[in-house]
């Protein structure tokens, strides 16, 4: 095993180009477990800790450019307003110690369906900034997950940043685990309201081979909200609409039975989380609407 220690992003790209099998390590919260337990003996470890700009973020007009290694604890503390869904998701990651080390780049690189950030990224809308010595490209989050623990990265590419759309409305995130902290998701759900486009987006974790969106559910809800003028009148969403949305979210799952939970429980739980997060976000949207009206 060789330990590569690039001092800059350019050096990291060059190293990855030279050794495409090199395994990038940043927070180490996935890679080191595999090494400690003898599940993996990569030829090269590519340490990204010394690449400073991976730890930075930039809040732009439309989006936040989030460095791949920005620790979850920083996201929780600093980006709660811009990226509320991701901040909530970050808070559910493992333990304080892990949140101090791990970042979204690792979740994306591993692309486990159980990664906590995925549903929030899917719901918010995001692009992955991938780069190699050949150049840089932006991969839409919807096209990023290609299979169980597989992603759209080329062997010579590294994740530099994620561009996440700034919240234009309320966002929520829920995760079911069988412990009240430090737990891997049995399943997870992210929901973002986008009042500007009058759309909703969802993300489901751990209930299909990859993180997925519940597109049929989104389309149904978009139409239902539009039809009855909910975005404008700010009425309470009718229980039947909420139930239909929840059922469609559950139907979007393609889960398995494993030691963490059964497939049917996962489907059920996603439905419950969909209904609850819809209620929380919609109440928040109504509250904000009332507040802005009051102010006007």
């Amino acid at each position, binding site marked *: *095993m*060789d*330990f590569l*220690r690039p001092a800059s992003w350019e050096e990291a790209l060059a190293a990855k180009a030279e050794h495409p099998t090199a395994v990038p*390590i940043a*927070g*180490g*919260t996935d*890679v*080191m*477990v595999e*090494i*400690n*337990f003898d599940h993996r*003996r990569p030829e090269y*470890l590519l*340490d990204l*800790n010394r690449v400073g700009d991976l730890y930075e973020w930039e809040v732009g007009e439309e989006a936040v450019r989030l460095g791949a290694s920005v620790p979850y604890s920083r996201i929780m503390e600093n980006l709660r307003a811009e990226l509320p869904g991701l901040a909530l998701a970050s808070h559910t990651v*493992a*333990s*304080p*110690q*892990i949140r*101090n*080390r791990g970042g979204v780049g690792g979740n994306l690189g591993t692309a486990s369906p159980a990664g906590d950030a995925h549903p929030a990224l899917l719901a918010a809308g995001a692009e992955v900034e991938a780069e190699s010595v050949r150049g840089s490209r932006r991969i839409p989050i919807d096209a990023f997950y290609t299979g169980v623990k597989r992603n759209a990265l080329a062997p010579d590419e590294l994740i530099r940043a994620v561009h996440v759309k700034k919240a234009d409305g309320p966002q929520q995130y829920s995760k079911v685990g069988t412990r*009240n*902290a*430090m737990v891997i998701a049995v399943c997870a759900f992210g929901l973002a309201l986008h009042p500007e486009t009058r759309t909703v987006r969802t993300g489901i974790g751990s209930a299909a081979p990859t993180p997925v969106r519940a597109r049929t559910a989104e389309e149904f809800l978009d139409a239902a909200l539009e039809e009855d003028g909910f975005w404008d009148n700010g009425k309470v969403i009718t229980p039947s609409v909420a139930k239909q949305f929840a059922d469609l979210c559950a139907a979007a799952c393609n889960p398995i039975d494993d030691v963490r939970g059964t497939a049917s429980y996962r489907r059920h739980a996603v439905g419950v989380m969909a209904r609850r997060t819809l209620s929380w976000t919609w109440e928040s949207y109504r509250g904000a609407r009332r507040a802005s009206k009051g102010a006007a």
Partner: protein
Amino acid sequence: MRVNFTVNGRPQEADDVWEGESLLYVLRERLGLPGSKNACEQGECGSCTVRLDGVPVCSCLVAAGQVEGRDVVTVEGLADHARQRAVRDRCKTVSHGAPAASGPSLDEARVRQAEGSDSQAGEGGELAPIQQAFIDAGAVQCGFCTPGLLVAADEMLEHNPTPTDADIREALSGNLCRCTGYEKIMDAVRLAAARQGEAV
């Protein structure tokens, strides 16, 4: 490979480090600092918690090569760390022009604690307030989780000197204990916070 870094304020050099080794292994097996415990090696128990550039991390998940040039504090350096922090805090108070603390100093408070207990604390080196509180409150049984909990709890009190119970539970939710049921650990952290409050 060779790794140079600072541990508890002292420069350290580890040689012939296998590339897959963790910081935890280097601390325990190469630098003679076995205080950080190896209980799961997968970031699920917190027994190996150290501070890396000030931040609590699981040292089992930090590759040894990643600590090159960085600063690590382990349980072995916790008392020194707390002492320096206390001195720094006192200087800060003075430099801000505030009157010097009128209550007992931290050091005085510590002496009182030592007198009030039957333990051998204070014999030789002084303990950090959180260490003394763990002994006094009965928060130590087998003690295997203790070093990690101490590092995590001390860091929390550094940032949040008056934590609520829910704050304490959240801050320590990455540290498993199998013996105590956590109640005495809660007592210990509350005790350390209270003593810290008295001392300021």
